[in-house]
């Protein structure tokens, strides 16, 4: 298969086990098969702590799979590549750098000359609506603004693959809807493939082309649902549509069971 026709991301029987401090093995992901086409937006939902984030670290190259293969654009992943962008759940902006300098850091790390990096950073800051904040430090911004900085800092590298690990979970509900719309707009201007991990089913349906439901940990793919809602979508509006509610019910039937299993395990732990 040539590189041009190969899918953006391919996981084949990928497993990942971590050594716990007590010496045991904790399997976060087992026997995972997942294919993401080029330009596709895939959301991954699953119960809390099931190993969804591990999937992303495998694709990013931050971690290696214990078993199986992870391919990006047809090539096996070896270390962190330059095709990937990653938006983290927690704040990962550099607190000692100004907003502009934060957004510039990606191109600068990759050896882009300073003036060019600055131009591109300013361009992306304008797109996320932060052009007037370039001299601020992250602690002077709101949570939503910091997330915008993180988005700009990721998009400025022009990633082919965008990995997002519950990026908006720390935001309040209104800001979250706003950010989701903005993400869809920014994404529409690129050809990037997106893997968006979340535990919020509504968010995943509103954003994605396909929703992947994971099992309770160790995570593996349980079911995949195609979301046939037309684009462009507005997050607040789309979730009132009858078709949305229909899809929601359908997926929840699958997801709810896994959530229940996780909850029961948690209760067993407490007891």
């Amino acid at each position: 298969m040539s590189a041009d026709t190969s899918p953006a991301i391919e996981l084949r029987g990928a497993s990942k086990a971590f050594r716990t401090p007590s010496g045991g093995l904790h399997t976060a992901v087992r026997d995972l098969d997942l294919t993401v086409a080029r330009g596709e937006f895939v959301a991954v939902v699953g119960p809390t702590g099931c190993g969804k984030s591990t999937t992303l670290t495998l694709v990013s190259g931050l971690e290696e799979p214990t078993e199986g293969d992870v391919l990006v654009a047809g090539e096996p992943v070896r270390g962190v590549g330059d095709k990937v962008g990653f938006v983290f759940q927690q704040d990962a902006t550099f607190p000692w750098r100004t907003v502009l300098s934060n957004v510039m850091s990606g191109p600068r790390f990759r050896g882009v000359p300073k003036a060019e990096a600055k131009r591109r950073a300013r361009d992306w800051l304008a797109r996320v609506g932060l052009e007037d904040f370039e001299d601020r430090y992250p602690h002077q911004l709101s949570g939503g603004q910091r997330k915008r900085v993180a988005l700009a800092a990721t998009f400025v590298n022009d990633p082919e693959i965008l990995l997002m690990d519950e990026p908006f979970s720390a935001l309040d509900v209104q800001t979250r809807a706003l950010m989701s719309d903005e993400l869809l707009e920014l994404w529409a201007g690129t050809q990037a493939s997106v893997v968006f991990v979340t535990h919020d089913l509504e968010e995943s349906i509103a954003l994605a082309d396909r929703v992947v439901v994971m099992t309770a940990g160790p995570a593996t793919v349980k079911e995949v649902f195609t979301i046939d809602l037309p684009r462009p979508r507005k997050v607040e509006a789309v979730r009132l549509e009858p078709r949305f509610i229909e899809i929601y019910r359908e997926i929840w039937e699958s997801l709810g069971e896994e959530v229940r299993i996780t909850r029961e395990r948690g209760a067993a732990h407490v007891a």
Partner: protein
Amino acid sequence: MSPELLSTPVVETAKAPDRAHSRARAARRRKVFINVVRALLLVGCLGLWEALSRAKVIDPFNFSMPSQIWDQIYTWVTHGTALGSLGEQIWYTLYEALLGWVLGVATGVVLGIALGRITLLADVLGPYIKVLNSIPRIVLAPIFVIWFGLGPASKVASAVVLVFFPVFFNAFQGAREVDRNLVSNARILGASDRRVTLQVVIPSATSWIFTSLHVSFGFALIGAIVGEYIGATKGIGLLVAQSQGTFNAAGVYAAMVILAVVALLAEGLLTFAERRIFRWKPAASEH
């Protein structure tokens, strides 16, 4: 509706400045009060010392008294000490302490970051550093005097060994406890290992390192003074040793006062530098 919710400008201009004014006045008054109490406490303690000493309740020969200490400082300032001018002694000690501090901080930071980043190095050297740290390093001062003689080198050496360890351990800890998200993010954005160290690990370890800088300047002074006390040709430590040798209690106290002033000034400079460097940090009280 409570008055806070009224947002018409008329109400605000009429009420807000008034309240802010009285609040500011109360804050000012409290500050003055605290300063007055502080001053009274100091005067009381010194007065009590002076009175007890003059009344011979405590032996003035051994314990001296504030007025004698003041006289001693005055004589040193106006007529110089037995070793030469007072400024020269202070400069000598300060020079040794500063040089030792800079060297100790530099090696401590470099080694701390290196061991924090390179696990192999930390695993190999870890136990040795622990052993070295457990030696009471002040006893090295006599050895340094034997090795390096009575000049400044032996004092610088004792300052270095005192400064190195706290700085090293803080830099090491700082490098170890860097937010893993920041490192991952930098790597995803394309940073090489070297860039991660220089642009992520070192900046985030600076607050750890600065904590140790405050403590360690005091240690540098201790190193220099103890070195001088054991054997020197100049410096405040020698002044202490000489005063002690001539049973001049006031001289010992006077040297202590001078040292305290020097240490406080250095601390002030350091705090100033810290404020400049940590502009990116949310201030604990910005207003």
